[in-house]
């Protein structure tokens, strides 16, 4: 058997109050891939993401991480092995930048020297000055906070990075810069990245592969270029056309000017 996929979903379903949020999804994500899951609010993309580290339990089906069914694993140990960047950033407001970054290594019982060295390394990895170590989250800008969020997710050297709308609350310039920085970290560290976003343009630029979800089901699953070329499903076609449509509108504006 070849290498097991980093993440595999097998017929995964999750219902809330009888309504399917995730409906029989099967996907296989090979190690090293950067995958974006796009879809409207309520399409089930965040729920799907959370089944990977058991923040949500599926009602049916299995989720395999590196070939092992996560249902059989200790959720605490599993989460410490998988990096997670939260939608609302979710930094601990009472802890300094360094303490936030160091939290998972500390839970894993790393030595103080190892933790210190790792915090320094991560601060430079996400392009934050070292003297930010002692700042509290509310002394940072939105972009800086999310850089710390990414650093925290990567602190314990996970092979898998899950990101839930990571750049949603940022201004467009910061958003683009941080997206590209994340992509280069993905390359540099050899990660498998699964990112949930509602921004098709961001998905197209950053991801190797785009999964389009609606009402809990996978409507499309392909490389960005292939999806941009067109799709039989009108919902997917309309969604994937957004970046091109915007680009046309912008060039029309500029020519008129």
């Amino acid at each position, binding site marked *: 058997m070849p290498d097991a996929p980093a993440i595999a979903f097998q017929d995964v379903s999750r219902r809330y109050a009888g309504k399917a949020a995730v409906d029989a999804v099967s996907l296989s994500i090979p190690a090293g891939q950067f995958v974006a899951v796009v879809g409207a609010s309520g399409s089930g993309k965040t729920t799907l993401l959370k089944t990977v580290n058991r*923040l949500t339990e599926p009602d049916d089906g299995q989720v395999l991480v590196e070939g092992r069914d996560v249902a059989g694993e200790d959720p*605490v140990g599993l989460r410490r092995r998988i990096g*997670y960047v939260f939608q609302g950033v*979710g930094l601990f407001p009472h802890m300094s930048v360094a303490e936030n970054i160091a939290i998972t290594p500390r839970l894993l019982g790393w030595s103080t020297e190892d933790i210190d060295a790792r915090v320094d390394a991560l601060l430079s990895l996400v392009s934050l000055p070292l003297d930010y170590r002692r700042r509290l989250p509310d002394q940072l800008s939105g972009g800086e906070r999310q850089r710390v969020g990414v650093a925290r997710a990567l602190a314990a050297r996970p092979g898998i990075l899950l990101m839930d709308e990571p750049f949603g609350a940022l201004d467009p310039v910061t958003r683009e810069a941080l997206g590209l920085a994340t992509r280069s970290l993905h390359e540099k560290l050899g990660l498998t990245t699964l990112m949930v976003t509602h921004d098709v343009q961001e998905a197209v630029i950053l991801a190797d592969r785009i999964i389009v979800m609606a009402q809990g089901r996978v409507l499309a699953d392909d490389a960005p270029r292939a999806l941009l070329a067109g799709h039989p499903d009108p919902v997917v076609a309309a969604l994937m056309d957004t970046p091109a449509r915007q680009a046309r509108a912008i060039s029309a504006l500029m020519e008129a000017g």
Partner: protein
Amino acid sequence: MAAGAAQSQIAAAWALLPDYLSQHVLLSASALALGVAISLPLSVLAARNPMVRWPALTLTGVIQTIPGLALLALFYPLLLALSAFTAGAMGFRIQALGFLPALLALTLYSMLPILRNGVAGLLGVDPAVREAADGVGMTPRQKLLRVEAPLAAPVVMAGIRTAAVWTIGAATLSTPVGQTSLGNYIFSGLQTENWVYVLFGCAASAGLALIVDQLLGLIERGAARRDPRPAVIGLLLLLVGVGAALAPQLLRAATPAYVVGAKNFSEQYILADLISTRLQNAGGAVTRRDGLGSAIAFRALEAGEIDVYVDYSGTLWTNVMGRKDTPPRAELMAQLTDWMAREKGVTVLGSLGFENAYALAMERKLATSLGVETLSDLATQSSALTIGGDLEFLSRPEWASMKKAYGLRFRRQKSFNPTFMYRALGSGDADVISAFSSDGRIAAQDLVVLGDPKGAVPSYDAVILISPKRAGDKRLIEALRPLVGAIPVEEMRKANYAVDRDDGKVSPAEAAAGLAKAVKLD
């Protein structure tokens, strides 16, 4: 009131402060610590589980609506029943009077603000932060200790502050269940109309509450700003303060003291002071249980929670022995002494030499105009009159047998604090009152004490009672025996009046010293 008298009262109040403050601090600090120890884990449980939250908050809320005094009073019979049970089942008695009931009641009292703020603080933690705690791989325990607890801490501390202020205030109410506190000033001051004492007690308790509140405020500020410095300073000062307040308590604990009890009126305070002084002169250490309810006092003596106090033969005869007949004075004393030794193991050392009988009294002008000299005369007029009784009298069997023997039926019946009862006669709020025959105010207000030709109420010799466990204590008995037969009713009235009158009043301790001097026992 003369300035000199007020000054001497303030000096007397200061002298009592180390003991009262120390016991007050010990009680409220223990209750608060226990309240925190119970409420914090309960808050966590209640925040996690709505099935726990509703009943816990409702129950502590209901407890809060019970008046503090009643809550404290309720624990006495509860513990007494429990004590009877443990004595039967396990061979030891638990303390039903004093520290334990006060501690339990105040602990319950302290719980609501801590619990309410604890739950609010924990539920107020941003859900995104809670999810992040799960997501980075914290166990539920790590999430609680590293994330939820520190974030909820400022709100929780605010709750603890409120609880501390409430507890310190409510601890003044523990005096009637036999626990010395700053409330001793207030209760004894109220009984003897010593407003200097009442104000002193209020100021001391309010001052203590303010200081503790400020120190806890420092800790709260530290928790809110995530700066350990003010928290550490606050905590240190708090510990130093508790330690300093407890020092007299710890020093005294070395010698087991005689516990002298007193019920809640002036004569009892004076006699307890007289007894205490004699015991101290004989080399004994003394602690006091002042302001006890009448029924509580005897039960406490029986259980050995107090060692000695003064009660009245007729009271014991009707209320403890349950007798309805009224034999002559000497025979009643003899039967009482015999019965107490045989049935309860309690020593009746002897009569002090005077009676403090329950009697009905009227103003002379009204009595003369109505032609009333005895209870029989009163019965013909009573339907147009209002009787004022102290709370206890109107529920006692003596009153029932008095009403029955003479067919007394009053237009209205009112209850007063003993002090205010005498005032009620002057102000017209009552026409007849339940007076005490040794009360100095009878002579001072020129009241007529109505005769009891049918002998409906027994005699009320003031007797010294000694607890079963001190029955063989020679030092105690030898120190108190000279008091037997030594106090004529005139001297007792004088001493009582010195405390009860409005002008130039003295403290019970001063009156006791004067009394000792007058009967040549100083």
